[in-house]
C-alpha cells in the first residue's frame, strides 16, 4: 500500500495552485479587458441592446368648427421597419419578407427593395409607412426577428373636402402646407417628448421611463359653421356645373363680428388627399385677384355722397347707352334713358357712374378706395392672402383711369375684399376684420392676440341710407331681381366684368367674371355673402342672372337653418311656436 508523504502533497498542492492562479490570472486579464479597456464600447453596446430612447410624438391639436364638430384630428399610425438579423440565411430573410408582404400587401417592387437593403446590410429599412394600428398588431403577432415599429400619426379629416381651403392640409409627415394647419401650426403641433425603454433578452419592454413628457398641441375652434359651409359648397358646385363656369367662390360672413361662417371654392379637394390635389389648392377667396366690375361702384357712390357731390334724385342722362372717355368707349348693357343717381346704381349704369364719378377729385376717390380696405390685406388669419392691386393716383392715366376704376376695372381685388367692403353697409359703416379662428390659446394658455378694433369707413346714417335707397332696390327691382327673397329684405350689388384676354391683351366680350355681393336681412343683417363665378357660359353671364339666384338659395337655407323668422309674410304665412300653442286646442 502506497503512502503519501508530506513532500508529495506539497508538490501536488503547488501544481494545483499554479493552475488555479493561472486560471484566475487569465480571468483577471479578461475582466480588466472587459471592464477597463473595452468598457466604454461594451457599455454602449449593452445599452443599445437593452435600452431604447424613443421620441414620443406630441399629438397634434384638433380643429373644430364653431359648434365643436371635429374637422381635423390625428390618429396614430406606424412605420414598419426591418433590421438585419445575425446568422440569418438569405432564404430565411426572403421567407420573412414574404410573410410581411402577405400581411402588409407589399408590391413586388417593395419586396425587392427590402431584400436588396438586407443584402447590403443597411442598419434598417422601411418596409411600409402609415400602417394602421390593427395592421401593425397583426405584424407584431408574427413575432418576426428584426421587425420594429415607429409610432407616428396621420391627420384625418372626417368630412373629406368640407372647408378644404380653410383647413389647408398637411403632408404625410404632418409637415404643414396651407390653411389653418399652416397659419396656426405653432399652436397645433405641440412639443415632442422622449422616453427610455428597458428591454429584456427577448426584446420585451419591461420598464418605461418618460424623461421628457410630450406637450400635446392645442385645439383650435374655427368661426366656420360646418352646416353653413356645406350649404355654400353644395350651391356653388351646382352653380359651376349649371353655368359651365371654370371656377367659383362663396364666402358667408357674420356682418357684426367678421366671423367667416363659410368659405367655399370650386374646384375643391379632399383634404385627406392633400398632396394629390395640387391643381385645386388655390384659395380663390383670398389668393386670387380679379377686376370686380360693377360691385366696385359702391366705392365711387360712397365717396360722391360723402363729399356732397350728388343727390339721390339727381338726374343723369344715360340715353346714349355709351360714353366716350378719351380713347375708351364705355357702354351700358342696354340703353337706359335718364336715370336718377339711385337708379344709376340700381340698374348698374356704367355711363351714369362715369358721369357722377367725374365730379370726384382723384385724391378723394383714391382715399375712399383705401378706406374701404382695397389695396391692402384684410388681415384674415389665413396664409397666402393677396393684397390686390390699386395703383396710386400718380400712376393713373389722367383721362381714362378714374372712370375706369369707378366701374371696377384697372383694379385687382379678392372676393373677400369686396365682401368686406359691402359689409361696411351691413355693419353700420364699420370695416370689420374677417377671421376664421374663433378661439385659440398659445402654449402658455393665454389667448392668441385678437384683431385690432374695427375702423369706421362711413357715417352710420350714410351707410343706412345707401342701403335702403339703393342696395335694397337692386334686389327688389334692379339688376338682382332674380335673387329676391319673398321672406326677407335683401341688399346687394351685382357685378359683371369682362375678362382680359391674355393673348389679345384686350377685354373680351366672350369671357366674364360674374358676382353678387350683399347682406340679409338688410335691416338687421345676419349674413353677408358674396358669390363669384369665373367665365360662366350657357348663355348667361350677368351677375344678376348667374350669382344672385345662388345668393338667394344659400341665404334662404341658412336663414331657415338658423331659425331667423321672416320679415315679410310669405304666401303661406309665418307660424311661430307661440302662435302654434295658442292655436292648438
Amino acid at each position, binding site marked *: 500500500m502506497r503512502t503519501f508523504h*508530506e513532500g508529495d502533497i506539497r508538490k501536488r498542492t503547488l501544481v494545483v495552485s499554479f493552475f488555479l492562479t493561472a486560471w484566475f490570472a487569465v480571468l483577471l486579464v479578461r475582466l480588466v479587458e472587459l471592464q477597463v479597456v473595452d468598457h466604454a464600447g461594451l457599455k454602449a453596446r449593452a445599452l443599445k441592446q437593452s435600452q431604447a430612447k424613443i421620441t414620443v410624438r406630441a399629438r397634434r391639436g384638433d380643429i373644430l368648427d364653431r359648434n365643436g364638430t371635429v374637422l381635423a*384630428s390625428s*390618429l396614430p399610425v406606424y412605420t414598419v421597419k426591418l433590421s438585419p438579423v445575425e446568422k440569418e440565411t438569405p432564404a430565411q430573410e426572403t421567407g420573412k419578407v414574404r410573410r410581411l408582404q402577405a400581411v402588409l400587401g407589399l408590391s413586388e417592387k417593395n419586396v425587392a427593395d427590402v431584400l436588396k437593403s438586407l443584402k447590403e446590410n443597411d442598419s434598417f429599412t422601411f418596409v411600409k409607412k402609415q400602417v394602421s394600428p390593427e395592421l401593425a398588431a397583426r405584424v407584431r403577432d408574427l413575432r418576426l426577428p428584426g421587425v420594429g415599429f415607429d409610432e407616428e400619426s396621420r391627420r384625418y379629416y*372626417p*368630412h373629406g373636402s368640407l372647408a378644404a381651403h380653410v383647413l389647408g392640409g398637411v403632408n404625410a409627415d404632418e409637415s404643414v402646407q396651407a390653411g389653418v394647419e399652416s397659419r396656426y401650426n405653432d399652436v397645433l403641433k405641440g412639443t415632442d417628448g422622449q422616453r427610455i425603454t428597458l428591454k429584456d433578452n427577448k426584446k420585451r419592454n419591461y420598464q*418605461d421611463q418618460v424623461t421628457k413628457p410630450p406637450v400635446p398641441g392645442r385645439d383650435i375652434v374655427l368661426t366656420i359653421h360646418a352646416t353653413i359651409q*356645406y350649404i355654400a359648397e353644395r350651391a356653388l358646385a351646382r352653380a359651376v356645373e349649371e353655368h359651365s363656369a371654370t371656377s367659383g367662390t362663396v364666402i358667408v360672413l357674420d356682418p357684426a363680428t367678421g366671423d367667416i*361662417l363659410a368659405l367655399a371654392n370650386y374646384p375643391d379637394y379632399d383634404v385627406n388627399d392633400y398632396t394629390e390635389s395640387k391643381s385645386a389648392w388655390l384659395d380663390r377667396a383670398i389668393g386670387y385677384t380679379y377686376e370686380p366690375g360693377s360691385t366696385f361702384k359702391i366705392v365711387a357712390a360712397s365717396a360722391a355722397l360723402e363729399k356732397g357731390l350728388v343727390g339721390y334724385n339727381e338726374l343723369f342722362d344715360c340715353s346714349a347707352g355709351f360714353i366716350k372717355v378719351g380713347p375708351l368707349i364705355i357702354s351700358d348693357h342696354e340703353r337706359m334713358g335718364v336715370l336718377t343717381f339711385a337708379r344709376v346704381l340700381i340698374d348698374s349704369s356704367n355711363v351714369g357712374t362715369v358721369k357722377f364719378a367725374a365730379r370726384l377729385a382723384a385724391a378723394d376717390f383714391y382715399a375712399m378706395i383705401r378706406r374701404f380696405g382695397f389695396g391692402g390685406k384684410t388681415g384674415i388669419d389665413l396664409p397666402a392672402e393677396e393684397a390686390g392691386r390699386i395703383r396710386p393716383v400718380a400712376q393713373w392715366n389722367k383721362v381714362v383711369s378714374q372712370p375706369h376704376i369707378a366701374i371696377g376695372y384697372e383694379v385687382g381685388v379678392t372676393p373677400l375684399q369686396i365682401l368686406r367692403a359691402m359689409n361696411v353697409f351691413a355693419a353700420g359703416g364699420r370695416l370689420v376684420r374677417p377671421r376664421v379662428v374663433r378661439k385659440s390659446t398659445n402654449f402658455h394658455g393665454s389667448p392668441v392676440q385678437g384683431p385690432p378694433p374695427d375702423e369706421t369707413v362711413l357715417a352710420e346714417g350714410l351707410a343706412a341710407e345707401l342701403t335702403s335707397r339703393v342696395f335694397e332696390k337692386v334686389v327688389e327691382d334692379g339688376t338682382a331681381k332674380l335673387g329676391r327673397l319673398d321672406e326677407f329684405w335683401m341688399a346687394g350689388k351685382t357685378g359683371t366684368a369682362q375678362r382680359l384676354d391674355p393673348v389679345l391683351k384686350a377685354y373680351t366680350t366672350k369671357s366674364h367674371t360674374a358676382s353678387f355681393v350683399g347682406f340679409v336681412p338688410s335691416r338687421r343683417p345676419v349674413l353677408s355673402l358674396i358669390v363669384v363665378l369665373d367665365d360662366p357660359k350657357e348663355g348667361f353671364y350677368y351677375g344678376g342672372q348667374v350669382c344672385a339666384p345662388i345668393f338667394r338659395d344659400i341665404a334662404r337655407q341658412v336663414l331657415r337653418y338658423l331659425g331667423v323668422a321672416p320679415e315679410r309674410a310669405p304666401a303661406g304665412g309665418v307660424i311661430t311656436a307661440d302662435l302654434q300653442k295658442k292655436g292648438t286646442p
Partner: protein
Amino acid sequence: MIRRKWSPREIALGAAFLAALVGLLTFYVWYQTEAVHLGIDTGQREAEIKALHDDILKLELKKTALLTPGRVEKIARADLGLVDPKTGEIIYKDKTVSR
C-alpha cells in the same frame, strides 16, 4: 497534517449561514425576475390602454364622418324621401338667432 474536527455547533452555524445565503440569493433572483415580469405586464397593460384610447378616438372620428352633412342629406332625401319644407310649413321658435 491532521484536520481539525468541526464541532456540531460550527457545522450548524455554517449550514445556517449557507442556507441564509442561498435564501437571500434566491429572494434576490425571484425579486428581480418578478420585477421584470411586472414591468412587462405593466407595459402590456399600458399598450392595451393606449390601443383602447386610440380606438375611442377612431370611433369618434368615424361617428363624425357618418354625420357629415352631405351624407345625412343624401340619406334624408334618397332613402327617407324627405323634402325641403314650404315657406308656410316652418314653425319658428322665436325671433332670436343662434349660431
